[in-house]
């Protein structure tokens, strides 16, 4: 198009466009990234196969733990079955949530080589990343639900819908989601710095946090310093909150006889309000830390030219 044609169309520089359109722009970026993420996540195969892949992983995780309980046998094993199934189901949510964001960085930089273009677009980088991660979080949520379903229907996990504390469940799920996404942002920040072979890092991080969050055994069996780390992790409170909501008065993963919680607070288990408050505070701290880590990583990446490199070996 000639300059005359541009002028005829009125396509002259409009300085107001540089100011953007605030929340509307953010919303559009998020929706677009979410749609893109979902298409990339789900369009590669037929829905039935996608479903199998998505649930095989969390259900297998739960089964590993259930068989571990079975081989030991005894009353402790039966008592723990609901405990490990819920923890394991929730963990698929954690792994997917963390991986969704971190993999977006690796995918866009190494595979599609689009990271630099996403970065220089007017969209907020973090918002786009969050949008891209939504699809995996959704897959994780689906996996978690199905694992719970398998737990209730096949493995005999006693969940009574009438006895479930739905308000507590909604509150901890919302707060927990924020915390998981925040941890995902931290890992995405780390993956900007690391090399292509970082694909397995989200799983490694989730696997390590498995140890300190009481996902599949009560924190009380851990040494006190490790329990302290667990109590500072929002995921511990999230899992404890979901368990408390599903099995009110059941085995607590953060408290119990001989636990650090009991030593510190003089009570065996936290009440639901304490769980929500603890999740809120630790979640807020992690979110702040995530913002800091990501901004630092972004700055360092620009300083060292890491946004458009490829790092295979």
């Amino acid at each position: 198009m000639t300059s005359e044609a541009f002028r005829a169309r009125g396509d002259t520089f409009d300085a107001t466009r540089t100011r953007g359109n605030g929340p509307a722009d953010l919303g559009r970026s998020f929706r677009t990234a979410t749609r893109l993420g979902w298409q990339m996540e789900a369009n590669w195969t037929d829905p039935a196969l996608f479903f199998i892949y998505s649930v095989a992983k969390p259900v297998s995780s739960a089964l590993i733990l259930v068989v571990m309980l079975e081989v030991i046998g005894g009353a402790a094993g039966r008592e723990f079955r609901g405990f490990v199934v819920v923890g394991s189901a929730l963990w698929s949510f954690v792994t997917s949530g963390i991986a969704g964001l971190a993999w977006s960085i690796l995918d866009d930089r190494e595979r599609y080589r689009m990271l630099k273009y996403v970065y220089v677009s007017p969209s907020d980088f973090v918002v786009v990343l969050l949008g891209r991660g939504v699809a995996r979080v959704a897959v994780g949520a689906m996996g978690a639900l199905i694992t719970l379903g398998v737990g209730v229907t096949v493995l005999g996990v006693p969940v009574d819908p009438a006895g479930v504390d739905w308000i507590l469940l909604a509150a901890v799920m919302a707060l927990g989601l924020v915390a998981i996404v925040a941890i995902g942002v931290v890992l995405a920040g780390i993956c900007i710095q690391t090399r292509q072979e970082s694909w397995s890092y989200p799983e490694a991080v989730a696997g390590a946090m498995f140890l300190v969050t009481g996902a599949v055994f009560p924190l009380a069996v851990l040494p006190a310093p490790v329990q302290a780390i667990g109590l500072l992790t929002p995921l511990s409170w999230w899992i404890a909150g979901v368990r408390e909501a599903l099995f009110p008065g059941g085995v607590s993963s953060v408290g119990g006889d001989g636990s650090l919680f009991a030593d510190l607070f003089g009570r065996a288990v936290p009440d639901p309000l304490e769980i929500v408050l603890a999740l809120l505070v630790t979640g807020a701290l992690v979110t702040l830390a995530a913002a800091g880590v990501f901004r630092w990583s972004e700055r360092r990446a620009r300083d060292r030219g890491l946004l458009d490199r490829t790092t295979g070996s």
Partner: protein
Amino acid sequence: MSSAPAQLAIEAHSVRRVYRAKPADVVALDGVDLDVAPGEFFGLLGPNGAGKTTLIKILTTLLLPSSGSARVFGFDVERDVTRIRRIMNMVAGGEQSGYGILTAREQLWMFSQFYGLGTREGWTRVDELIEAVGLAEQRLQRVSTLSTGQRQKMNMARGLLNDPWILFLDEPTLGLDVGAARAIRALILEWKAAVPDRTVLLTTHYMAEADELCDRIAIVDRGRVLAIGSPAELKRRVQRESIFRIELDRLDGGSAALARLPGVVSAAAASGEGGEERQTMVMNLVLEEDAALGGVVGALGAMGSTILALRKSEPTLEDVFVELVGRGFEEREQDDRTAVPA
């Protein structure tokens, strides 16, 4: 071995290549015939989508022809794959291959091992080539931090690691700035001068590059070879007469006086030249042949005119292409790197 004495470096007979695609199959090569002699610097000149890269891929054993046959030094590209790979190498423009985590030197050493060079021999060879291609300063830099020009120098060094008997260069200066492209061309010429018995097949859509480097050129378009010859031969196809542009201080009798001279086909005042302002006359002079120029110069002297400037007008390879295809290079927008999965 299927070789015979004095094998051609490349023999392609009726090579046709069709890519399965939707909504319609793409015919990338449509019956290409080509003979390239050993030691020749041969160019494939054509616009994007002409089929140049497809032909190189077939000759480098990466792609099978849909029909027809092709041989490299007598080795069949379908059957004698390993033998061809032992004697050839290839470098493409815009190549981003390799591992970003390695330095340029390490990357080249890795490839030297793929070509069977000894461990220490590989390092020595790499260091020599790094020096030769002008990458000494960047040798310990990570590949991911090299500029496009530096990366292409590294790719050239990779292409020469195994001292190939035939080197395939697929648009080697694509995307490079003028200086970097010149450096790559100089390097290619230096290598060719050092080993004149080696063969080069170059694809390019840069006319000047083909003109500068190649002994012979095949002009290709839409999968067909339209003409083959040396740059001079090809240009002669569009210019059977000799055209000169001549500037005189004065010319009594005007262009008609010139046109009457022996051997002159036509003479006309050149348009767009500043003859009037400079108070000189600029004429386009068409002669039957170059030899007629002597007579014209003598006659002009006798007529009292002084020749201020004399320049022969050369046709370009673009003129050849326009003559053959009926349109210019830029008029075809289809890009074989995107439209054709080659």
